[in-house]
């Protein structure tokens, strides 16, 4: 069986799993495990398929499943190397998120689980579908399907007005973006001869437009760029992200961070590297993309520093990290016509950064979820010293934080290191890129600051939990395991960057624009011990041997430690020194842990509130992320309830389902599938409309 | 700014090195310095004037028997005001320039003087109080309670 078919089966398993989960969602304790079994099965299949495509270094396809010749669209699962690479990541996140959810979702006692597991699996089915499409129409179908599923996950806490508002913003912004993409697709379709939605046809059409109607092409590229960067969370289009991610359950947010945002990059790569011929368009759009990237880096990351909510910090960091990817892509596009080798390296850096992000971003959301589960808190000002209680979470959070901040020897360092090299050294023709590189380097320190705040507030300092709660220990195994796996991937990719880079090289070279790219050895050296860049001819321009560096660091630290024990100094535990004053017993140290949907109220106040960190710096950049003070117009109730599908769709359905259940006893109404039906009906309408219009 | 920094540096360099390698090269205090008190037991007549005027009351006078008067100088409480030397009619109490009085053993700071008083009873007139206010002290205005009576 060919890998594309395997992926198809994997997707089918997910859909079946969604149905099964919906049917069994009454049994709260079993549905998680059941979903996990389905998810794991799908994940294994998809992973093996992706791996085999990469190993074979050859695209595969299922053949046409649905053909719509009158509009020139066909549903085909086509997996090339880039898709395969993304499939690997998706399958990993799929398995780990499902596993993590088993324990984590118990936090939401008041929520019906039929609103979680089925949607999560359908979401993943949509994500897999998006990367496997080679046809813009079905790409859009899956894209929209994924968006709808994710919307319902965002508003999972349907009683919480904050979630609802975030969901509303999300769905409006992303649908606006999708509409732009639709326009672009249809415009290309119309210029294709014959009219076709397939990637190949689009490529040809774009090539012709580049010559014939450059202005139109620029407009189309802008539409695509806006659509994809909205999803990726690039500022200013990604403004929905800081609201929507914290609103979603941490496990769902991890799934979004590991897959959905990356698909924005996937789309940009497809458009700008596969459809767009190497030309002046690349140069111009390279600069545009890099500017948006560096803007996101700067604004997103610095805004993250000012956040006190653990998940909002992460959400803003998502924006910043996506900025790095865009900066790399922009640099690559800019260099593509002149220095294809360095451009190739830039694209590899971008994809590597995406993959790294798919490791540490979900991990950080898992960490935040673990904190939320054990303390009921997202406010960092009200957390302290949890290392003693959640040691494993703390260590994985440390790994993830240092990775996202790009500290050696973790994976984030390698991709950032590549980005600095290509921006500082690779693009001297346009000096602004050097500044971009330096901004990127500076902002990676800001990222570090934000995560030191996260670590310092949540895990370090005096333990906040009372003894009886501290005794419970770390989070359940099902939540520990995903964190450990992702942390290991962060360390592994950091130490052996050649492993992912080999795959990335294959994925990137498969894109149309880079068919004549140099070999991997020519770019980053041939040694598995590390990377050696030679951007200009023979001379080495950059070197990083992670294993050697790590061995040196460990040896040196051990040496230092040994030295410190020379005096055989006695160790003694003491109380924190407050200038000789007694401050204990003044503040209650107890925390009310109530796994409720709303943040629990705590009586604890940490000694030093995280809010106080980096005061002067924050003041200097106070107005960088202007929060537009919109007049607080209460959303018209009807509009609100129109968007809150729960009110007019889900609840009646549920009631009807219950009524049916009672009526026909033993048979259960698969309620959430109603969404699917609704969605499919909607798509059918769109398709019919297009077909009519196209005729 | 640079000019003021240069001026500051000039002030510093003009002074040269002024501190002494102190414990290795001791420094003599000025004349008239109030250092440690010493008592010449030969000269002491046991009038107790020093004890009467001592503000920290570190001189204890006791009469174990009618013939003998004991003066204990507990110098760890001395404030170096030199009033004792000022009132001593016989110049038995003198102030030296010794200032390195730190010690691990409090006995180093104690002086024990015994004076035979076979012919002289305490009369309160052996020394002249410097002012009437001091005389008030001598003539028994000490409160009957409290530990100060021993002094």
């Amino acid at each position: 069986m060919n890998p594309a078919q395997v992926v198809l089966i994997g997707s089918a398993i997910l859909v079946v799993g969604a149905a099964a989960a919906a049917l069994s969602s009454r049994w709260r304790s079993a549905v998680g495990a059941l979903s996990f079994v389905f998810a794991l099965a799908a994940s294994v299949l998809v992973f093996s398929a992706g791996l085999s495509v990469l190993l074979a270094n050859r695209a595969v396809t299922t053949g046409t499943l649905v053909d719509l010749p009158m509009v020139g669209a066909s549903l085909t699962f086509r997996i090339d190397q880039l898709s395969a690479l993304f499939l690997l990541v998706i399958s990993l996140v799929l398995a780990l998120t499902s596993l993590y959810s088993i324990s984590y979702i118990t936090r939401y006692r008041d929520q019906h689980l039929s609103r979680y597991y089925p949607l999560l699996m359908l979401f993943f089915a949509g994500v897999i579908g998006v990367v496997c499409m080679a046809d813009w129409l079905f790409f859009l179908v899956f894209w929209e399907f994924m968006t709808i599923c994710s919307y319902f996950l965002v508003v999972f806490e349907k009683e919480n007005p904050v979630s609802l508002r975030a969901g509303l913003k999300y769905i409006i912004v992303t649908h606006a973006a999708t509409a732009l993409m639709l326009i672009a697709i249809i415009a290309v379709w119309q210029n294709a001869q014959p009219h076709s939605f397939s990637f190949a046809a689009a490529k040809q059409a774009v090539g012709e437009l580049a010559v014939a109607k450059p202005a139109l092409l620029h407009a189309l590229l802008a539409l695509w760029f806006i659509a994809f960067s909205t999803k990726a969370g690039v500022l200013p289009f990604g403004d929905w992200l800081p609201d929507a991610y914290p609103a979603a359950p941490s496990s769902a947010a991890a799934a979004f961070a590991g897959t959905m945002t990356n698909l924005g990059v996937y789309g940009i790569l497809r458009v700008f590297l596969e459809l767009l011929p190497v030309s002046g368009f690349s140069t111009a759009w390279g600069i545009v993309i890099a500017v948006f990237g560096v803007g996101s880096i700067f604004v997103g990351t610095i805004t993250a520093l000012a956040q006190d909510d653990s998940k909002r910090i992460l959400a803003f960091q998502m924006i910043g990290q996506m900025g790095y990817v865009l900066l790399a892509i922009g640099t690559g596009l800019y260099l593509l016509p002149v220095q294809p080798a360095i451009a190739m390296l830039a694209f590899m850096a971008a994809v590597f950064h995406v993959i790294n992000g798919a490791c540490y971003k979900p991990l950080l959301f898992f960490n935040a979820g673990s904190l939320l589960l054990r303390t009921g808190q997202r406010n960092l000002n009200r957390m302290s010293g949890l290392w003693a209680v959640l040691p494993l979470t703390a260590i994985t959070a440390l790994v993830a934080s240092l990775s996202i901040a790009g500290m050696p020897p973790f994976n984030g360092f390698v991709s950032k290191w590549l980005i600095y090299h290509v921006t500082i050294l690779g693009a001297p023709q346009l000096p602004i890129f050097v500044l971009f590189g330096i901004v990127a380097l500076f902002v990676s320190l800001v990222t570090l600051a934000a995560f030191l705040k996260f670590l310092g507030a949540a895990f370090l300092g005096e333990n906040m939990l009372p003894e009886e709660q501290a005794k419970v220990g770390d989070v359940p195994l099902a939540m520990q395991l995903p964190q450990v796996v992702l942390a290991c991937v962060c360390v592994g990719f950091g130490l052996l960057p050649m492993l992912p880079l080999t795959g990335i090289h294959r994925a990137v070279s498969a894109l149309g624009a880079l068919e004549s790219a140099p070999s991997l050895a020519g770019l980053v050296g041939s040694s598995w011990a590390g990377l050696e860049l030679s951007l200009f001819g023979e001379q080495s321009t950059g070197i990083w041997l992670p294993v050697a560096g790590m061995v040196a660091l460990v040896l040196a630290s051990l040496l230092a430690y040994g030295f410190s024990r020379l005096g055989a100094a006695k160790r003694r535990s003491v109380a924190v020194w407050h200038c000789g004053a007694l401050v204990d017993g003044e503040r209650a140290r107890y925390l009310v842990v109530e796994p409720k949907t709303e943040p629990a109220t705590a009586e604890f106040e940490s000694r030093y509130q995280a809010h106080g960190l980096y005061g002067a710096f924050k003041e200097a950049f106070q107005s960088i992320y202007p929060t537009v003070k919109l007049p607080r117009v209460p959303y018209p109730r009807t509009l609100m309830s129109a968007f809150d599908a729960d009110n007019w769709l889900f609840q009646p359905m549920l009631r009807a389902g219950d009524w049916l259940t009672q009526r026909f006893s033993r048979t259960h109404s698969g309620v959430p599938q109603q969404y699917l039906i609704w969605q499919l009906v909607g798509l059918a309408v769109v398709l019919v409309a297009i077909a009519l219009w196209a005729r | 700014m640079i000019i003021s920094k240069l001026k500051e540096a000039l002030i510093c360099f003009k002074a040269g090195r002024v501190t002494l390698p102190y414990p290795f090269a001791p420094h003599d205090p000025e004349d008239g310095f109030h250092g440690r008190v010493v008592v010449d037991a030969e000269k002491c007549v046991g009038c107790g004037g020093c004890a009467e005027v001592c503000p920290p009351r570190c001189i204890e006078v006791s009469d174990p028997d009618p013939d003998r008067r004991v003066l204990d100088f507990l110098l760890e409480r001395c404030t170096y005001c030199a009033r004792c030397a000022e009132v001593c009619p016989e110049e038995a109490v003198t102030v030296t320039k010794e200032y390195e009085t730190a010690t691990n053993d409090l006995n180093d700071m104690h002086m024990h003087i015994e004076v035979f008083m076979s012919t002289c009873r305490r009369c309160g007139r052996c020394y002249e109080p410097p002012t009437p206010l001091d005389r008030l002290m001598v003539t028994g205005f000490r409160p009957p309670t409290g530990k100060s009576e021993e002094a």
Partner: protein
Amino acid sequence: MTTAELVRALRHDFGAAIQSVEEPVSDKVRVAVTPESVVAVAKSLYRDYGARFLITAGIDSRKDRDGFDVDHIFSLDKEQIFFIVRTTVPSDGPHVAAITPEVPAAAWAERELQDLLGVKADGLLDGRRLILPDDWPEGVHPLRKDIKYGDWPPLGDGTGEATYPWKPAPEGTSTVVVGPFFPVLEEPTQLRLYVDGERVIDCDYRGFYNHRAIEKMGDSELTYNEIPFVAERICGICGFIHSSCYCEAAEEALGITAPRRARYIRSLMLELERIHSHMLWTGIAGHILGFDTVLMQTWRMREPLMWLCEKISGNRKTYGMNIIGGVRRDISRDLYPEILSVVEKIEQEWAQLYDAVQGDTILKARLVGVGMLPEETAKALAAVGPTGRGSNQAIDARADHPYAAYDEVPAKVITHPDCDNWARVVVRLEETLESVRWIREGLKEMPDGPVMATDIAETVPAGHWGVCTVEAPRGEAIHYLVTGGDNRPDRWRVRAPTYANLQALPSMIKDETIADVPITLGSMDPCFSCTERVEVVNMRSGEAETLTHQELLTRSRAATERLRGR
């Protein structure tokens, strides 16, 4: 306005509320008023006549008239008048209306009155303990006469758990504790900063960790002529100020006049002390800002002066020269040239330093506009010394109530309008030069003659009183003395300048950053122990083990007992 006019005006306003008037010395008047009218009189003095509140002295007079006297001491600076408002409250459950709501500067004085004398001040916004320890039992008030010096009531429940009712931290702030032990606080005091990041939102103060009960000692243990030596130890830097102030107040109460030469010598020593104190402060201020070169160089310049003092008095510091009726050591004429040459050298070097510092933009960046004490606040809280003068308050005891030789050789009052830390620096730098000028003039004018009064009466009458202010480098020190029957005062009230200035601290550090707190605190040259008049606690345990707070407390108290047992 003379005292007579003032009293007439008050009588007109308050009629029978004014019970009696005493004016033993001209321009020093004590008026007894009824307890009901004390707030109104105080308010009238403060608002209508521009009187400045100095201090409140509570006196346990139960043996004479079954009551507690509460004396609010005011100063009318322009008219050079001390005006004391006395009210007597019955000894049964004593309470008096607080004047603090009308006269904000009285806040600490009235809290102290509650603590030490048990006279409840009604209407205080902040009536928490000021002086007594947290675990001190209720109802025991050490300054009452039935408590003997050295009596120690059983403290708390022995767990050491007693805590102070600190202000609650404002929402969203963290608490940063400054002190009791903090590098730039040479003495223990505790300041709790409620900060948002580095910005100070609010603060709370707790001091008096070192209370030495010197006032109690003065009215129950010491004799008149012993007190100068103890008074000198109220402060390590401005000791001579306190002994002079005590001696002048006592001389006034006892009707003794010190000879002119003695008063010139006092003034000379006071000015020398001001110079070396300002030099010391400048060094410390540099150190607080991390500018240790300033510390080293100003202290180097200061050193010859210390040697000079050693030559004059026999001691480097804590000269022990003052005694009631004059001074103990004369200054030989042979020393005059040396004194002149030392101060001239200082003047020259100080002028250079002043010049250099004025152009130092980095130094000014840390001082200008920091620690603002607006004029109105300074006036309301009665800030004194360079702290007040830096906020344009021309308060200087040398000009307001001349003592020692300042009536003959006046001193110039230096003020600065900027109200910030830099203003206080400038005031001190210029005052140093002014003191040098005074010494030069004073030496020229110094008369010959005896240094000790000879016409001292054989008996000392009880119930007389005297009050004196002396301008210390930090501000004015006040001593108020009521004579008693047994060769010691009935009440001896001391107020060190820091007591007044510290009350202005919260408004000075509000909205500053943590980094600016030490220098702002330092800018008032705080002297906590002077404020506290403390009992020395020695910890004599030789063991190397570490003590818990409670163990330390127990041992310290045991050690105090042991010392006292001597």
